[in-house]
């Protein structure tokens, strides 16, 4: 987690990783406020589908967004995403509901590649690119786009 000396700061990036459905995603670690277990939610009738509800984060009311619905993924498992990745946004913290929390990993900038043209639709909007890790791809979630819902 702690960054080594300053030269590597330029070339390395830390990501908080998580799984949504079948997708292995990451968010830059400095945007993540905290990761917490399932919380009691208050549903908001009339709100967009993606908004699962409101939760009480130590006296602060935080909106929780269901990432599986946000990414338009099919419901392949019976359990809804439960883990909260609370991220910082200019308009206050927002919680992303994901299926599973992964490790915080340090990746090298050289491993990054922009998404191919064949990536289309909502995923093109939400995925900023990928890091080619050993054996799998870490998809970089475009956080600002992900928390911005079409009005």
């Amino acid at each position: 987690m702690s960054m080594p000396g300053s030269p590597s700061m330029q070339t390395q990036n830390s990501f908080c990783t998580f799984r949504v459905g079948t997708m292995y995603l990451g968010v830059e670690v400095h945007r993540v406020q905290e990761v917490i277990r399932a919380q009691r939610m208050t549903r908001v009738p009339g709100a967009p589908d993606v908004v699962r509800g409101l939760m009480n984060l130590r006296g602060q009311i935080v909106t929780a967004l269901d990432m599986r619905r946000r990414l338009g993924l099919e419901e392949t498992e019976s359990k809804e995403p439960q883990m909260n990745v609370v991220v910082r946004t200019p308009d206050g913290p927002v919680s992303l509901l994901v299926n599973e929390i992964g490790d915080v990993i340090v990746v090298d900038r050289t491993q990054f590649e922009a998404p191919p043209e064949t990536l289309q639709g909502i995923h093109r909007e939400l995925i900023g690119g990928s890091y080619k890790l050993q054996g799998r791809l870490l998809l970089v979630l475009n956080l600002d786009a992900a928390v911005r819902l079409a009005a």
Partner: protein
Amino acid sequence: MLDDIVKEFLVESYENLDQLDKDLMALEDAPDDRNRLSSIFRTIHTIKGTSGFLAFPKLEHITHVGENLLVLLRDGALRLNADITSGLLTMVDAVRSILGNIDSTGVEGDEAYEELVARLGRLKEKDPAPPAPVASPSDKTEIEVEKVIRELSGEVAAAVQQLSAPPKKSARAPRAKGKAAAKNSEIHVNVPAPVIAETPVIADTPVIDEPADHTDLEHATAAMAPASAVKREARSSSDSSGDGTDRNTSVADSSVRIDVHLLDKLMNLVGELVLARNQIMQFSQGLEDAALAAASQRINLITTELQEGVMKTRMQPIRNAWSKLPRVVRDLSISCGKQVQVKMDGAETELDKTILEAIKDPLTHIVRNSVDHGIETAEVRRKAGKPPEGTLLLRAYHEGGQVNIEIADDGAGISVDRVRQKAVEKGMVTAEQAAAMSDREAIQLILLPGFSTAAKVTNVSGRGVGMDVVKTNVEKIGGTLDIHSTVGKGTTLRIKIPLTLAIVPALIVTCEDDRYCIPQVSLLELVRLEGSRARTDIELMHSVPVYRLRGQLLPLVFLDEELKLRPHRTDAERRCSDIVNIVVLQAEDRQFGLVVDHINDTQEIVVKPLGLHLKSLSTYAGSTIMGDGTVSLILDVLGIAQQSHVLGINGTRNMIDNSSSHGEHARNGDSWLIVDPLDGTRAAIPLSTIARLEEIRTDSIEKTGRQQVVQYRGQIMPLISLNEFGQVEPDEHGSISLVVFNDGHRNVGVVVGRIVDIVSESNEPIHEGTGDTRIIAGRVTRIVNLEQIAMNA
């Protein structure tokens, strides 16, 4: 390091300049107020001195010229007139703009202000006034004050220390109490401020060199009273000055400037503390450890006090947003050739800091509009039989968890017909739509973008941009904007804004297992229908459910249906419910019933704004955290009323009229309450004059002298009987039926004997009789005028 000093200088100078604006204008009304003159002089002198020290030559030069002029004024060699005031105000503006340059670029800017310097120089020459008497009483006061100040300063400092300790309060202390405490400590804290601020500057004026002849403390204290009286008088002589006087000069000494972000952070931390406290409390209850229980109890109290304290730090009097307006009005009225006087009422009303910032611009805009379009020129006013000087009244007050701000002028008012005509001309509405609108709806048209009825476009307003922006800004902070206008009498704009962060009393209801909060501002009453009544009393008016509330049809909105938690009930489904809970709500001037599953209780809730994703939902006004830590949504009564079409946006009038209009006589087609006063007669009361129907027990009646009274809603309500013998007779169940009449000030209970029926003229033939009797439903019936009866009570 230097940057910090400059920053400090800027912040302080801005504050001083605001004060200068006020002082100068106050001085216009009382040109000989020497205390004020001295204070203005000192402010300019301070800016001059500091700018010399910080090497801002231009600033130093301008203030120096201004200071020279002020010396003459202060010494009585020159008398203040409108020209000099304008000159000095221009100087203040120049100083402000230089400060602005320093703020943004670090240097003073290119403008030379030669013209201003020359103008100030010229002002110095002409119109020498007769010299003021050398030893005017105010001089003496000043000496005394100075003396007192020196002697008292130590004393006061000690007192301040005591007072600045947070006032003890119980956990659920009402806001009013907290405010009173705040006010007290503020007043005391402010006392030493002018002391320390004044002493060094005054020291080089000759006044202070006179020997002090009263030395004992008691005398000094006594001397202080007239001094403060003088100050107060000076203040009241011009409403515009407000009493920000002490506040601003005191900033340096009795208060610490704190970054709002830091306060936000503290606020959040306190929130976390509250929740940790709740957990500890729960935990300690399970353990039955006396020591732990005592400790957690203490934590409980401290946390509550801390929470209140931190919340209060964010509250500021609305005066802070108003203080700039008199200057705006002055400049504007001079340029329009009008005479306008600004009055303020309720300047101490407190609002959250963020809200205060948000309403500053809308307020300025409204005030400009009022002066430019509302208030007429002196001749026009004289012709209309009004005093030549127009009045602009700024009023603020708390009302049920909301702050009302009114901006009222006694100008020409808005002609609703012209608004209609203009809106049709501009193609905003069709002629039919315009004709179908009520006056209330039509006048709201001026809030649409691009609307302007001004005969000509002035450089101030009337370009048709503005009111819509004002409306948007007010709505952004969860407020509403309302316009009332009478042609020839004036216009009143009322802004209603919530006190976010403030504690709002709310009714908690349950709907589909979730709890929702309804702010009590909109709550009128609760109706519970049980058993067979639940099945039969809800009627359908062409598929729209309604309930007859005292003869008036109340449209019903089912909360679960409105929130789309279930499909609309069929008629059959509606008929099989055992209990119906109706929350009767007021939205603007309409009433409607919100049907919920359960009514829980009332609670004080802390309003938290909704996140970005939910802002667009008109159904909710915010959210809150309940005692058990769950989040609950706060319903927006107005939003629900609009969404469910209880409030027609335009055209479609609703089926229910506001029945709370007092003292109005029944019009044709109105409903009557038919009662049997138990003396063999019949009486009818127009329903529209009745505030409520109540049933009381015989034993709740008390007596004061000969008057029978009951305790009603915390007040003593006199009882009058309709019975010809004036007797209060219980019915067979030992209870007494009352009709409550409200004349706007108090309630009067009229004992009606037995309630027979409610009839409306449309379905019961009512024949004219003699005098105040009619034939209703085949019986001779006396028409009761509640207003008259109440007058005799």
